[in-house]
């Protein structure tokens, strides 16, 4: 195995890759959840306002 392969598949590199992938997905989930639940709560609030003023 050459040096390049050792670098590419080193445990440290694997950790960095796993962390970067996790960071991207976690950010997407947190932002999506925030927007989704904000819109749902807003819609319920608007409905309640229509019903009860």
């Amino acid at each position, binding site marked *: 195995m050459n040096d*390049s392969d050792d670098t*590419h598949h080193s445990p440290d590199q694997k950790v960095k*890759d796993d*962390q970067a992938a996790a960071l991207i997905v*976690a950010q997407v989930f947190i932002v999506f959840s925030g927007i989704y639940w904000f819109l749902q709560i807003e819609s319920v609030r608007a409905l309640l306002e229509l019903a009860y003023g």
Partner: protein
Amino acid sequence: MSTAIFSNYSKTLITAAILLAALMFGYSDLLSTVYVGLEPVFMWSETTWFGYIGKNYGGIFAVIQAVHLLSMAVLGGAVIAGDGRVLGIVLRDVPVRTVVDRAHRIFVWALIVVVATGIFMACGVASKIYFLPVYWFKMLSLGAGTLFHFFIRRPLLRHDINQLNPIVVKMVAIASILVWFMVAATGRWIGFSG
């Protein structure tokens, strides 16, 4: 250079590409084509044995639903225990590795039961849930949560947790709790709809 980046960050790049593809799918005409194409499958599922039993034997449906809800509670407990420990909120006197590994085992069994009982229940009310947007949000979050658990969270937490960036670890735990909360909440929502 670009080959090195791809080689070093192959998982990150594939993950980003999948997220981008999912986003493009969500805003493309392909989504409505797939949605319309799935209607016959849902209508057919009501004619299967599962659909027949689900529609005509309320007692059996209720028992399966109870098992579904109990396994959902177990799954939620496993998520709260595992991610709560990662966040340092619960079970602080037990090593992270122990809690995460044991919670994972319980999570897998609970997920199998949730999916199996969920398929049975969906067959019984297929013509109703097909038209419920919240059902599709549940399927989206269930699929995303399952992929996230097995391909992102689990491989990440296999590493020595002290070696990982604490902010990333905490964000993963919060994202995990949020996605499974969404599965549970949208599931309950289906029960209240129609």
